[in-house]
């Protein structure tokens, strides 16, 4: 699954640490998501979409 979380984070001008605190996860988790190494749960994806005021599809792109 691809994502453009880094872009959304840059738009909000927040660090990985700040986003991690907002999402109640570790900074390493945000880093792993950005690098495409870890796919977040649907709950975390919804939380991110709500935080960035967009839809899940705006951040995450599912590719077969």
């Amino acid at each position, binding site marked *: 699954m691809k994502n453009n979380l880094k872009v959304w984070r840059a738009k909000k001008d927040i660090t990985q640490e700040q986003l991690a605190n907002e999402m109640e996860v*570790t900074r390493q*988790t945000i880093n*792993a998501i950005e690098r495409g*190494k870890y796919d977040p749960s649907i*709950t975390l994806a919804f939380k991110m979409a709500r935080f960035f005021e967009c839809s899940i599809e705006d951040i995450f792109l599912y590719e077969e």
Partner: protein
Amino acid sequence: MVIKVQTKDTGVLITGFFISLIGIGIHIFEPGWIINPSGTGGAFVGAGIVLIGLGIRSIRLKNKGTIVEDERIFYIAEKASHKTLTILIILQGILMAFLGITAFDIQAYPIVSLLFAITVLTYVGFYHWYKRRF
């Protein structure tokens, strides 16, 4: 400074304290029904100290506001546990077959200790391997 302690952490600290106490008791009184009192006592004290250490670490990190566990950590732990269990089942199966075929007379204590060591090392190894992967 106010130190917040959760019930789970208190439980871990108390359990660690009692396990250490049992270990010290075994080491001092050396009950006759225990084959290796110093080894058993040492194992209990070690386990107790590890629990106390983990409890104190958890309290300190939570007081700092550091998030210790999240869904990725649980995912990694799940993967590591599954792999460890698979390896242990295979190893124990081989061991059972070997002992069944050869009727090899072997003491339980070293075998259980070896399996314990393999369990810990396999889990820690896989945990770090998956942590680098995810």
